[in-house]
């Protein structure tokens, strides 16, 4: 079984966002980039699937981006992924463009099982996995917190409003991963060392037109700090009064 895992190189969640000079993206100065947190869960699940399928199963990590994204590929390799592919494009792509490049490569590689994080913490679209699946005519189960694969059949729990859905589907498939599915392993020193010897293929990302275009990025209006109305429970009646009469939310 060839298993693909798609990862994204994103600003650490502790980043304080500043708007870049182009007015459309963030200012990357001083920003630390990391593997997208949901993608670490995807990598872990891919490694578990490889252990389960055994034999000559292989996990391949893919990303779309510039040379800098190799750092995130190395992180996945250090966790235990076998090899990496960097689909190069220095320009900004929308989710469609990213999915197109991933889907083309997955088709070439012949991967029948694909894992993606359920969303990347930069653009928060939460659609790349589904797009890749539809482009490949694969099944897709998104936002998965529990997964079993038996023969050709997938049974997954997805987190939805007010509960969990049990979904059945079949391979080939894309699964997008949510917190709670597993606890991603740490890269061991040995893993980090051996990652340096693993192959990263570099090739241009498949051409794609962006179907959407960012016109402008801006910061939300600053929130005014409000009033501290007390330091103990004696302030509670005043608080409730404000919520009723001023905020009108009760």
């Amino acid at each position, binding site marked *: 079984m060839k298993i693909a895992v798609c990862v994204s190189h994103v600003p650490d969640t502790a980043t304080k966002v500043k708007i870049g000079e182009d007015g459309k993206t963030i200012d990357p100065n001083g920003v630390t980039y990391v593997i997208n947190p949901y993608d670490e869960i995807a990598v872990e699940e891919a490694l578990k699937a490889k252990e389960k399928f055994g034999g000559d199963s292989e996990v391949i990590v893919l990303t779309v981006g510039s040379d800098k994204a190799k750092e995130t590929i190395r992180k996945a390799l250090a966790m235990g992924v076998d090899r990496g592919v960097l689909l190069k494009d220095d320009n900004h792509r929308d989710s*469609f463009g990213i999915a197109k490049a991933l889907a083309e490569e997955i088709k070439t590689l012949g991967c029948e099982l694909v894992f993606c994080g359920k969303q990347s913490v930069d653009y*928060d679209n939460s659609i790349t996995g589904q797009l890749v699946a*539809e482009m490949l005519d694969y099944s*897709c189960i998104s936002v998965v917190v529990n997964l079993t694969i038996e023969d050709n059949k997938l049974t997954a729990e997805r987190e939805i409003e007010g509960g969990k859905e*049990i979904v059945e589907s079949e391979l080939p498939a894309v699964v997008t991963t949510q*917190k709670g599915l597993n606890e991603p392993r740490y890269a061991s020193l040995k893993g980090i060392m051996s990652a340096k010897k693993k192959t990263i293929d570099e090739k241009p990302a498949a051409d794609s037109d962006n179907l959407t275009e960012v*016109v402008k990025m801006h910061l939300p209006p600053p929130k005014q700090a409000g009033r501290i109305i007390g330091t103990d429970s004696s302030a509670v009646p005043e608080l409730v009064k404000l919520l009723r009469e001023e905020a009108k939310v009760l």
Partner: protein
Amino acid sequence: MANKILAVLEQRDGVLKRSAFETASAASKIASELNLEAEAVVVGNDISNINDIGNYGISKVVHLKNADLVNYSSSGYRDAIVNYATEVDGDYIMLANTSLGKDLAPRLAVKLEAGCLMDCVKLDTSSGELTATRPVYAGKALVDVKFNSGKKVITIRPNVFKAQSTDGSSVDVTVNEVSSPNLKSRVVEFKKSEGKLDVAEADIIVSGGRGMKGAEHFNLIEELADSLGAAVGASRAVVDAGWRPHGEQVGQTGKTVSPSLYVACGISGAIQHLAGMSSSKYIVAINKDKDAPIFTIADFGIAGDVFDVLPALTEEIKKVKQG
């Protein structure tokens, strides 16, 4: 004939959800601004409140019906909607950015060769074409985005666009039977979290952080939430500590929420948490440390001990509600 905007409305157990009416209202508004014809599309079996759609500005409803589509099936819903949208040549498709909307919208987009904009919080048509505003980096920034595609798929964030009730006009419901739906992927069971509201859909959220000092004290959060009819939320620290389930986490690696009222209890306000909740309409913070970052965005704060303030607040709310 005018181009169409199709509002895909979500039902659960045969009842249209609140976000469905928000979607209908938003679609109807865009339709009048861009001179489109708005139509509602509902997939499912029997829908008890389908006629209510008329109260939200849309008078034409297409019900794509099959007993096997009572529960969500990504393949079945996708094919039914794509077939209909292709048949009527709909240019715009709008859904709510719920679990179902997030799963389904990109699938429709690929099959219809449409661009796809998710989780929009503002839709502007003043230039004559649609520009959507959507949060990125969990709300630390926003982007204004336009489409480069002919067909357009949009999801709107729940709780942001109001379901505008208009004078109930009559609805014209057309039932299209869906023959042999594609059930390659399908929901076989729904495990309901008993009696719990979900933070992603709630109008009021009461959240607890590390200041609650342990899972065993979250009854104080739950009791306040009950008195307000609110959902329980949590900071990442308490989820990582195993005090609360992942589904309750608010913030950059949890859920981004915009309720009318957010009550943060014992939460200091890490940047990832603030990003996920600062677009709430009103924020109340209860925290011992008066210098905690949460107070920089709170409308009203009590710089006191949660163990003193929360029980008193719950009592006061109950009193007022019984009023």
